[in-house]
């Protein structure tokens, strides 16, 4: 009698842990599934050339997604990243065209590194505004960054009168050539954009896992009140995550402009939603405190490899949207499953826990993403 019960328990634990493994590795399994299915459908899918091309598309999503991850870990959301991406590309284009300084009657042509730094600084500034609105003035992140989405997009359109800047090549005589390096060149056969993505991932992974800032971020996302009472500077953590997100968006904007050899003021439209999707598919909780860089990277790969695969096998653009939406909904469902499960684990003694509330928030806050797609 006892032995049967014991084996039953062991067996249950085994299936449970298998289910758990499947659940926790779901983004990876989804990616694997996508690769397998599309390689069967198209011989061109899994060629080195195509994978690298897809990876450079992924790099854009991943950079936005990693910035977004920082904000989401904090329990916020950054809807302005798509606009920031477009705006910083316009800033780069603007600077490469030369900055006329009327007082002196000269035109200033900053070199490419300076252009890159200034563009990133603009992204940081946008993030700073977001962060200050959210942390000092207690504006809801959704609203503050939605406002910035419009403001920044408007500024980009204003600066160019709605036109695209097509000449980003610079001039050898003026010493501002080389912008195409970001989007076109390869190091060791790998596109520079992908390498930048990897570098950012390593830096942010390190920040999250090994620094005090990372721990503070997870803590304030998990329970801001408790974090504050433990001496965590919750307000400055909050400002910083938006700054990081802004910088990530700027980097993505620069790479995209360089790849396309043009800076469009409408670039990156709705990319904030793709970024949120990458974070969610990567297993992060929209209520904050849970998620990591690896997951978000996988999420970005799932999105990039899926959408490119659908293009390659010739699925219509409308169906692509349907697929994308379905993937996001399933991802959120699985997230709920993973984080909902823990609530039931302890037998009886634990008094009420606020987890139940956070699970509902997961679903609620995921809704706009899905609807917008």
């Amino acid at each position: 009698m006892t032995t049967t019960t014991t084996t039953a328990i062991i067996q249950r634990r085994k299936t449970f842990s298998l289910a758990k493994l499947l659940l926790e590795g779901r983004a990876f399994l989804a990616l694997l599934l996508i690769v397998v299915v599309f390689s069967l459908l198209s011989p061109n899918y899994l060629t080195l050339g195509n994978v690298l091309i897809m990876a450079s598309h992924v790099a854009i999503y991943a950079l936005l997604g990693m910035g977004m991850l920082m904000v989401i870990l904090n329990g916020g959301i950054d809807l302005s990243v798509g606009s920031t991406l477009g705006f910083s590309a316009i800033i780069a284009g603007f600077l490469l065209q030369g900055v006329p300084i009327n007082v002196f009657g000269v035109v200033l042509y900053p070199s490419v590194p300076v252009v890159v730094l200034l563009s990133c600084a603009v992204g940081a500034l946008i993030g700073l505004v977001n962060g200050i609105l959210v942390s000092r003035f207690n504006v809801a992140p959704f609203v503050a960054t939605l406002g910035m989405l419009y403001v920044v997009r408007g500024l980009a359109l204003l600066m160019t009168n709605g036109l695209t800047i097509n000449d980003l090549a610079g001039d050898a005589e003026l010493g501002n050539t080389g912008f195409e390096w970001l989007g076109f060149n390869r190091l060791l056969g790998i596109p520079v954009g992908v390498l930048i993505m990897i570098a950012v991932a390593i830096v942010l992974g390190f920040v999250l896992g090994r620094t005090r800032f990372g721990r503070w971020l997870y803590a304030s996302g998990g329970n801001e009140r408790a974090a504050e009472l433990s001496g965590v500077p919750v307000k400055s953590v909050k400002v910083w995550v938006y700054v990081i997100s802004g910088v990530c968006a700027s980097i993505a904007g620069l790479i995209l402009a360089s790849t396309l050899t043009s800076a469009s003021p409408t670039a990156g439209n709705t990319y904030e939603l793709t970024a949120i999707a990458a974070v969610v598919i990567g297993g992060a909780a929209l209520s904050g405190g849970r998620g990591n860089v690896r997951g978000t990277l996988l999420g970005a790969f799932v999105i990039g490899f899926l959408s490119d695969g659908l293009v390659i096998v010739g699925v219509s653009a409308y169906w692509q949207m349907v697929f994308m939406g379905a993937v996001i909904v399933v991802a959120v469902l699985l997230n709920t499953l993973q984080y909902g499960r823990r609530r039931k684990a302890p037998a009886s003694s634990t008094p009420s826990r606020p987890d139940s509330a956070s699970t509902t928030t997961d679903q609620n806050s995921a809704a706009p993403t899905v609807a917008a797609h």
Partner: protein
Amino acid sequence: MTGQENVGDVVLEARDIVKTYGGTRALRGVNFQVRRGTVTTLFGENGAGKSTLMKILSGVEQPTSGQIILDGAPVTFASTSEARDRGVSIIHQELSLAPNLSVRDNIFMGREITGPFGIDYAEEDRQTRALLDELQLPIEPDTLVADLRVGQQQIIEIARALSVNSRILIMDEPTSALAAAEVEVLFGIIRDLLSRGVAIVYISHHLEEALEVTDYAVVLRDGSMTAAGQRADIDLEWIVRNMVGDHFDLGSPPTGYDFGDTVLSIRDLTVVDRENPERAIVNRLDLDVRAGEIVCIYGLMGAGRTELLEAIAGKEPIAGGDVLVDGVSIAGWSIAQRIENGVGLVPEDRQRDGLVQTFDVGTNLTLASLGGSLSRGMISNRIEKKRARGLIQDVTVKTPGPEQAIGALSGGNQQKVVIGKIIATEPKVMLLDEPSRGIDIGAKGEVFRLLAERARKGLAVVYSTSEVGECFSIAHRILVMRRGRISAVFGPDATKDQIMAASGESAAA
């Protein structure tokens, strides 16, 4: 209270109730009876099975084996609404009212009275008024629940249960958020309900308080029923003995050492109500605490204890006066700076303010002292795990290891984690706001022992409590707070009556 002659028939009976979760047995064959017009109180530590039993009685969960007998016939409740239809209602510790709706809408939630023109508000209002009259709560049916005090909200919950003609009312920790005066009102209502033949199942950690209304006591320990008896045959000591077994000692103030210099000085401290800056919650209060001294602050809810402690810790802004640690003013400092300088707070609500639920035990323990886990500027996993294990031992947390999810611990162990987190910052002054709230008596004793042990090593401890009994456990000095001021100071030899009188509570309560 209902006398012996009024004790009615058995309306609800639990027979051999067993409940297992996976491999754990939460209940191992519990038997007890609920009689008409009486209060049956369940006593037991956290994890003894009270909550599980209650969930089974109210239809939240089904027993693994055993029977529930309602009015002599076995029943199974598939859900709470089914139980409610049969006359069994539960009022949870966390109230389940929608604060954005009116009293009327809450009472009729899910079973609105409809007429030809939609909801018949006039009829609902009429019935609501009748219910509120019965419960002597003079408020209008269209008052928003959010505008009511917790005690009043509780009464609305009771009104809702009565509106469906509940004959058996299960109350889970109904007084945990109530002021003493509100408790009296609640007890009045309970007595009134009893006289109308309602049976009540009552659960509370406040033993003394629960004894006031108890007719029958049922004591649980580790999922088994250890004792049961009528009010006339039992007393506090009997309950505690059966709850915890033979060992029961909350401790006594640590002696045999001299206090050090004054560590914490509070001068003229004033904290005002954020909503109403005219009202001082802490009113020009002075206090000195010396190293090694343990000070207990007793007071009713709203006396300003929490605000006082939070102001010292930096959570609550100071409107006037000064706080000094080792003679240095910390009034304008951030929480982080105060922690750095040896002032740490263990907050009242550990779920809301004390723990990061997404963290494991180890990372919760080291959160306030991450500086100690650094190696060349980075958090070292090795150092951190080592520190976490040390802390787990120091504060005797019962856990398999630092990787354990914080939610898997019992209330008492979670509290020890919050205390351990502050101890890890090497404080000079430790502030604890109701450290024993919602934890069982065994854990209480351990927490107090822990504080006594630290005090011996020179830590100044200030803790607040709303249970008089706890004032005597370890405190060298007992302060009574009333309306933002210290109304009396006692030594450990004070009596309960003296303390309660100074707090504004009637000694008879």
